[in-house]
């Protein structure tokens, strides 16, 4: 292959040379080049090798359908598996050919990515003759339009294939159309933008390349999330190759690609050219390359070629060989010639082989309408024998096809088809609108006069040429050049009994590479159908799925990375925790203080100190994340009676009750406290993680089952800070904070609530304990949170008050056997399994879950029950999540009797300990078991879940 840059022509800017490196070698291209055109211009036609067979790979196309020219970009940022044909040349670009696989960047991507949402009446995908016509018709009628195209400029095949449009170059017409579209305020034209997925109700995703081609502060890529009422798909077509021996050699290119490289990039891809075609569309490239100085021979499978083309070839000095086919390409690392055979071959007389030298072999097996988006939108395809390709069947409401995508045969038909599609869309828009529309259903559009050689038929349906004997074994006729899938492999699949294209695809990997079979899929269907002896339309094709072209995760994530990945919720006291060295734990979206290490302390030391303070002096926690739901209304008590397993309506005003909620199946859903502030006013607390779902749970029952109940449920989690003040000295600290509050045991008993002025702030104190110690929960409005916290620290300072975090909270509650719903339970655990039978009312006629407790399964002796575990050697940690077995002789499989759900070290117990769900657990109390994990095997004694202060003496101080 002796590609070279011509001195004149093309749309590249020769005044702006662009240096780049490829495979470590320095080259120079021009502004407007792609990496592929710059390499061809520099005479580089071969690079990289195939993934399975290591065969040389070159450039096959000039666009997104590229099956061969995969590169690894190393600079400015490492990206694997990009197409040389779609990378715009930029200064400093460094790339290399691929040997099958690429390399992911090891450093963070410095690029910025963002997203836009857009709503429009009409989305036009593809800005060629059909797309521009459609957009103009709709814009002139007053509709809002988004027109997108993946190329750097509008025009599509007008830029390469139209000799003239209204007597001028196609690019001139396209530029004028673009200029007119830009005058409409309701029209947006997006170039370098690829629609890659189409979803329900007119939702289309597109990716815009915004700054890969320029130095700019703009985001690198943008996702467009477009909701449109009508869609015109003017996505054009892909030329497909023909399969013959050695058809993957560098120097073999689609005919249309050579035309694009010549017209747009002023690159003549070869000097001695053979054009192998089954149809008329390859003659345009043949004429263009001959006019640029190449020596051209056209090999056409058809016995008859039209008189106009024959005379055109004669004038251009092009030799034609009709009724012939290329049966093999010659050459080792690049094509040097072709071996021809009469076509169709006959068995009667031996074929007369003819060999022609060439350095460029162009192929055209016809065109495939690009129907990926149509197919994604549930559009059905059928095989058209006349056009030898898959075309759309019946239209889909709201989706209109135009141009080559609609198999409209030439450019004149594409202009007309685009206009017609837009008018159909305008009519549907108008019909869908109840009131008179703001746009008209018609506008003027004059179909331009076009001179072009492009016409889809006549075409001969040819998929693969039989290989001559010397090229038969191993088979080197590649259907999918990216996966190295040959004709023989497809035949092996059908020979193995596969008769569906989806199965053949998976058996052979045909069409599963990066190009997703854009150019190979139809050929594969043709070959398999012939092997099965059925019509191609009966076999069908594989299903098209998004994305149309590869999309990076970075652009899908957009700005939602790092801190913006998920909302971060912090309490009103957060800054104090940060300033005092707290380490944080993520609890859902919340940042909760985990522990507060002093200098030199690790987690164990800090937690031991915090636990000791809570159990011997006084300590405090930021418990503001606790879910809080305000439940009000005359029927609030009756409603909560149905939600909780225990009786709530009997709760006295000013009192607090612990409660358990179950699902109708009787399994524990959540637990918490219910605080009665007035006859018709309750505050319900939930687990931090369940705050939202319990509010939804209430709404579901109120709205769908008991709409007659007069109850309102409102989330107030963020409205209040909650500070548990814990420890034997907490009463003394509270007395200082709330001097007007009678904190005596008699006046303020356990499970009571009191309105109080705390540190001068109006609030509420609940005598609730999640640690077993004497404790108070202080609640004030969130805005006063830090003020209260600082007042608590100041008042407690003489008593040695110690702030503690979630780790200590967990140790304290676990020592008391208090389960965390969702950690010590898993949706198969009843209140009885947790030892909470005392909280299940026997008096109430009904509550959610009650009926299920009467099911026989609840009486089984082998139900898993919550128990405590103590290691026989108290210094040995019990592994969290460990399986409990009865023997230290670990051989798989062996019976397992439960698992460790929480495990900690306890200062109060001077031992490690755990909570566990164990089959028949309470009957095993006192027995030995073994906690097995991959790291350790620990002998444990089963104990009651309440390991500390089982008589509950400490709660009153």
């Amino acid at each position: 292959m002796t590609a070279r840059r011509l001195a004149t022509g093309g749309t590249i800017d020769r005044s702006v040379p662009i240096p780049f490196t490829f495979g470590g070698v320095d080259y120079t291209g021009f502004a407007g080049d792609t990496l592929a055109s710059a390499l061809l211009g520099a005479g580089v036609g071969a690079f990289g090798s195939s993934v399975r067979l290591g065969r040389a790979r070159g450039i096959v196309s000039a666009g997104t359908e590229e099956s061969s020219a995969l590169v690894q970009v190393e600079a400015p940022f490492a990206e694997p598996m990009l197409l040389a044909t779609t990378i715009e040349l930029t200064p400093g670009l460094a790339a290399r050919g691929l040997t099958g696989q690429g390399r992911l960047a090891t450093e963070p991507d410095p690029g910025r990515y963002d997203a836009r949402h857009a709503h429009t009446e009409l989305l036009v995908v593809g800005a060629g003759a059909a797309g521009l016509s459609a957009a103009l018709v709709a814009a002139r009628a007053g509709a809002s339009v988004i027109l997108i195209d993946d190329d750097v400029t509008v025009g599509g095949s007008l830029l390469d294939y139209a000799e003239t449009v209204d007597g001028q170059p196609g690019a001139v017409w396209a530029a004028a159309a673009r200029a007119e579209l830009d005058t409409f305020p309701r029209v947006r034209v997006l170039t370098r933008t690829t629609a890659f997925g189409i979803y329900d109700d007119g939702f289309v995703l597109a990716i815009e390349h915004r700054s890969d081609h320029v130095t700019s502060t703009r985001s690198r890529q943008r996702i467009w999330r477009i909701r449109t009422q009508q869609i015109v798909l003017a996505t054009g077509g892909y030329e497909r190759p023909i399969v013959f021996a050695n058809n993957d050699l560098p120097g073999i290119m689609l005919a249309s690609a050579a035309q694009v490289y010549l017209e747009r990039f002023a690159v003549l891809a070869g000097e001695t050219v053979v054009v192998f075609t089954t149809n008329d569309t390859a003659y345009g490239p043949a004429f263009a390359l001959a006019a640029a100085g190449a020596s051209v021979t056209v090999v056409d499978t058809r016995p008859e070629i039209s008189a106009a083309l024959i005379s055109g070839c004669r004038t251009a000095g092009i030799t034609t060989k009709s009724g012939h086919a290329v049966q093999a390409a010659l050459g080792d690392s690049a094509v040097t010639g072709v071996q021809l055979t009469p076509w169709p071959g006959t068995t009667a007389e031996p074929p007369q082989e003819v060999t022609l030298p060439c350095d460029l072999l162009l192929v055209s097996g016809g065109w495939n309408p690009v129907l990926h988006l149509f197919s994604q939108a549930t559009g059905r395809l059928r095989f058209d024998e006349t056009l030898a390709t898959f075309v759309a069947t019946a239209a889909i409401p709201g989706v209109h096809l135009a141009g080559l995508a609609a198999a409209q045969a030439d450019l004149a038909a594409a202009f007309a088809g685009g206009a017609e599609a837009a008018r159909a869309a305008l009519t549907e828009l108008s019909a869908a609108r109840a009131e008179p529309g703001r746009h008209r259903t018609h506008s003027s559009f004059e179909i331009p006069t076009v001179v072009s050689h492009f016409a889809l038929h006549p075409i001969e349906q040819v998929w693969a040429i039989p290989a001559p004997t010397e090229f038969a074994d191993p088979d080197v006729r590649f259907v999918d050049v990216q996966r190295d899938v040959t004709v023989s492999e497809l035949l092996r699949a059908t020979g193995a009994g596969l008769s569906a294209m989806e199965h053949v695809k998976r058996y052979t990997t045909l069409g599963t590479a990066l190009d997703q079979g854009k150019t190979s899929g139809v050929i594969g269907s043709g070959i398999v159908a012939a092997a099965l002896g059925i019509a191609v339309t009966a076999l069908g094709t594989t299903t098209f799925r998004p994305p149309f072209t590869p999309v990076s995760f970075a652009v899908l994530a957009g700005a939602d990375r790092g801190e913006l990945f998920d909302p971060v919720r912090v309490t009103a006291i957060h800054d104090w925790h940060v300033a005092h060295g707290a380490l944080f734990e993520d609890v859902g979206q919340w940042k909760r203080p985990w522990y507060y290490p002093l200098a030199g302390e690790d987690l164990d030391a800090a937690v031991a100190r915090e636990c000791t303070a809570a159990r011997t002096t006084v300590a405090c926690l930021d418990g503001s994340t606790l879910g809080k739901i305000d439940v009000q209304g005359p029927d609030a008590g009756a409603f909560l009676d149905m939600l909780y397993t225990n009786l709530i309506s009997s709760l006295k005003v000013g009192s607090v009750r612990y409660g358990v909620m179950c699902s109708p199946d009787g399994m524990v859903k959540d637990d918490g406290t219910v605080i009665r502030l007035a006859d018709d006013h309750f505050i319900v607390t939930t687990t931090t993680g369940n705050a939202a779902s319990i509010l939804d749970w209430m709404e579901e029952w109120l709205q769908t089952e008991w709409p007659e109940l007069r109850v309102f449920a409102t989330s107030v989690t963020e409205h209040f800070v909650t500070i548990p003040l814990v420890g034997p000295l907490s009463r003394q600290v509270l007395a200082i904070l709330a001097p007007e509050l009678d904190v005596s045991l008699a006046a303020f008993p356990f499970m009571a609530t009191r309105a109080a002025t705390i540190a001068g702030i109006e609030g509420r104190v609940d005598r609730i304990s999640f640690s077993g110690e004497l404790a108070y929960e202080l609640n004030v409005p969130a805005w006063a949170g830090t003020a209260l916290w600082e007042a608590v620290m100041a008042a407690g300072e003489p008593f040695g008050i110690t702030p503690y975090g979630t780790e200590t909270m967990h140790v304290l509650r676990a020592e008391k056997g208090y389960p965390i719903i969702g950690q010590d339970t898993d949706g198969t655990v009843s209140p009885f399994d947790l030892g909470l039978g005392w909280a299940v009312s026997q008096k109430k006629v009904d509550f959610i879950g009650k009926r299920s407790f009467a099911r026989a399964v609840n009486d089984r002796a082998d139900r898993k029950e919550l128990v405590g575990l103590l290691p026989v050697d108290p210094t040995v940690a019990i592994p969290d999540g460990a399986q409990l077995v009865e023997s230290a002789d670990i051989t798989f499989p062996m019976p397992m009797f439960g698992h460790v759900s929480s495990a900690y070290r306890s200062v109060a117990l001077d031992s490690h300990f755990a909570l566990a769900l164990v089959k028949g657990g309470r009957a095993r109390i006192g027995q030995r078991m073994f906690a097995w994990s991959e790291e350790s095997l620990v002998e444990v004694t089963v104990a009651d879940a309440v390991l500390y202060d089982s008589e509950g003496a400490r709660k009153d101080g």
Partner: protein
Amino acid sequence: MQLIPCPNCGRREEIEFHYGGQAHVPYPAEPAALGDAEWADYLFFRDNPKGPFAERWYHSGGCRRWFNAVRDTRSYRFLAVYQPDAPRPDIAQFMAAAPPVAADRASAASSATNAVTR
């Protein structure tokens, strides 16, 4: 991404909604009066028809109201929406008017050609 017609808010993105299962399965008036099998029926058994299906939806990211809908399980299209206390529409009327796209989806789902790319 599908648009779901909330009866209170109009067409909104599907991610704003939560699915609530079959509609018109009321909480039994007297659970204690039910046998184990009847109670299990209420707890665990729901219809799974191919075609129009009355089901519950919750506009959790919008008006936070529950509503009922008739949806074609073949095409995912919503055929009607109504308030929770309104009677179930006549399902038969929707059977006749199954959209053509529904048939396509159904046949794709039952044929060997419905598989993910790659």
